[in-house]
């Protein structure tokens, strides 16, 4: 076991634990946001740079600070390490910079995006983003494509977290989509129209932190905040059958895996609770489900936190004070 201090809170964790996972063990405000890291998918992380933290002391043995901010998801803790997340001005500035980078080419089409309300980029933008954009150049655009008949890919919204590629690699027997081109032209694609026909391909939708991969059976049906999430289960031979069904009245609008407060699928029966495509796409009749009861959703989202009203109140106050 090693001792690590994150934002003045000390915790003992197993050797080899990443800074991010150590922070998650503490919980609350000290946890850095993660757009690409996904604990259930080995190999993810390090790319988006939103989880950058400051290491004020490397270890007990070598207490020198690390010269650069480090990706907390892929940096293991050392005994005696001192980490600053919320308490670091440098982290705050640079995380804001990363958010700006992620947004310059983002279409900001939240009003027509099915992910709105449960979008991690929306949350990050709210917490760290600037009010306006300094980006005056043309945004890069891609045509939306179908990945099979149930999944829509809006590359314009993608932040290239690579999670969906890891899902295809790790949960399905054959990957047909991947990362093409490079630099700012990088895109997720199938290259040639290839259907992702696989029992577990739908999990790509659940791991996508933004609205790049969406469920075609739920497209434009409703905003997520109008739906009532219910824990449900069914007898399924392919997966645990333990899901969340999102209901409006007596109708099931969509089915997802059960996710934790970091947006990751929860374990079911001792293993990651990925759900199969049958449960996700085919079972929309309440009679097919044993509906257990309301699912408590972590109200992390901008909209569900009611932050818009706070923002509006702040703006109102500014106007009253005669500020711009």
């Amino acid at each position: 076991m090693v001792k690590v201090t994150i934002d003045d809170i000390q915790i003992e964790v197993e050797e080899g634990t990443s800074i991010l996972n150590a922070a998650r063990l503490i919980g609350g405000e000290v946890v850095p946001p993660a757009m690409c890291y996904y604990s259930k998918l080995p190999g993810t992380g390090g790319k988006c740079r939103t989880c950058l933290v400051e290491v004020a002391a490397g270890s007990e043995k070598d207490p020198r600070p690390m010269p650069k901010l480090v990706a907390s998801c892929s940096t293991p803790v050392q005994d005696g390490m001192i980490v600053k997340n919320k308490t670091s001005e440098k982290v705050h500035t640079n995380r804001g910079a990363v958010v700006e980078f992620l947004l310059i080419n983002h279409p900001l089409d939240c009003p027509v995006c099915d992910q709105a309300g449960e979008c991690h980029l929306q949350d990050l933008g709210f917490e760290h983003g600037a009010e306006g954009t300094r980006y005056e150049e043309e945004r890069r655009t891609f045509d939306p494509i179908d990945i099979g008949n149930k999944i829509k890919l809006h590359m314009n919204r993608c932040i290239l977290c690579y999670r969906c590629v890891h899902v295809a690699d790790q949960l399905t027997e054959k990957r047909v989509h991947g990362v093409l081109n490079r630099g700012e032209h990088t895109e997720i694609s199938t290259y040639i129209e290839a259907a992702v026909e696989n029992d577990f391909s739908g999990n790509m939708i659940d791991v996508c932190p933004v609205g790049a991969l969406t469920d075609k059976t739920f497209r434009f049906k409703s905003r997520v905040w109008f739906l009532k999430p219910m824990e449900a289960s069914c007898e399924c031979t392919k997966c645990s059958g333990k899901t969340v069904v999102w209901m409006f009245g007596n109708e099931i609008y969509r089915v997802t895996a059960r996710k934790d407060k970091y947006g990751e699928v929860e374990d079911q029966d001792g293993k990651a609770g990925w759900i199969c495509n049958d449960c996700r796409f085919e079972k929309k009749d309440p009679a097919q489900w044993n509906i257990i009861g309301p699912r408590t959703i972590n109200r992390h989202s901008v909209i569900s936190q009611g932050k818009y009203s706070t923002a509006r109140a702040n703006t109102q106050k500014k106007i009253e004070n005669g500020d711009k």
Partner: protein
Amino acid sequence: MARKLLLEHDSVPGIETFEVYKKHGGYLSVEKALKKMSPQEVVEEVQKSGLRGRGGAGFPTGMKWSFLAKPEGVPRYLLCNADESEPGTFKDRYLMEKLPHLLIEGMIVSSYALGANLSYIYIRGEYMWILDILEKAIDEAYAKGYLGKNILGSGFDLDLRVAPGGGAYICGEETALIESLEGKRGNPRMKPPFPAVKGLWGCPTVVNNVETLMAVVPIINEGGDEYAKIGIGKSTGTKLISAGGNLARPGVYELEMGLSVEEFIYGDDWCRGIANGKKLKACVPGGSSVPILPAHLVTKTAAGETRLMTYESLADGGFASGSMLGSGGFIIFDEDQCIVRNTWNFARFYAHESCGQCSPCREGTGWMEKVLNRLEHGQGNLRDIELLEEINKKIEGNTICPLGDAAAWPVAAAIRHFREEFEWHVSHREESQTRNYGLLKESLVG
């Protein structure tokens, strides 16, 4: 000041063949190391020599070697980084074209020191004709018993192979190189773990530049202490410089570290001054990613001292008034060159070469390129200059690999030293399309 350790025989006809190379003292270091020295002794000689990585970072080679993990029963690999792609740098190409056996010799001795029995030369795909030269030389070395099983009866086995890239600057970054060698996209890996612990196929790996591995040969032949006597302070030995841009005599030069920059640019034995009798405007001394220096800081430091061709002297003054030796890609700009255009050109290079994996580099390099493109083409505003400074500060230090820094530094330095010229592009939008700003008055050097 013209002692040559690597290029001593580069002009001998047929030096690329085993016979001629051997006749001129080739492969002696293999005999010496494999027959008379232990691997550890070879490492110690390299440590004593003070040799620093010649690819750009200047990290002490002996120290890098000492970091190599040596778990039982796990193979270790030595990889030669021949993915020379830093704009301004073309020395490795020259070295491999002329002296393929010197590289093979350096790799045998280095592989022996590290305990590697399978080593690779990763060469940029565009150098495909050099790959042919190398493979031909490797075949010769196998035939003469310098590669393969039980080399010279020493009991040491080594297989040496060449692998080409496919066109990607990023593969010069050692973990991207490893990925590419494994047949994948050249995306740099997250560190830790470092290649010394987990490199090629998950095994401990050392990656060294072509020139670095060649320098091991004279170090073993003459001894690390002798090698360390050449040069100044921590800049020991000789360095290959690729001189390009507006020079009267561009080309590849081997110099003893410590030669003055002035002598190198103007000396008769060296570049013989600026081409066409023009004046010096600026210099990028170590490949496109290092800070550009205006004329008045090229031959003298800010403190007025003579600027030397060493790691330390070129870096004197930090980024405020200094630069870096880097890969030795020495680029000279004459009075007619436009700094804004060149900065845009370099920014375009980095945007083109970003792997696209991490967001600050993928988005930031593209953004800088677009803003600079506008400035260069008379569409810029004064706030664009501040914006560029902001963007590069936000890329620097926040990326997975050093490409982000490499893209940020040249933009920052160009604005630092030539802000007036950027402003002139905004205030004289039309004029800037037909005429160059020319020399900055205060940096006139005869």
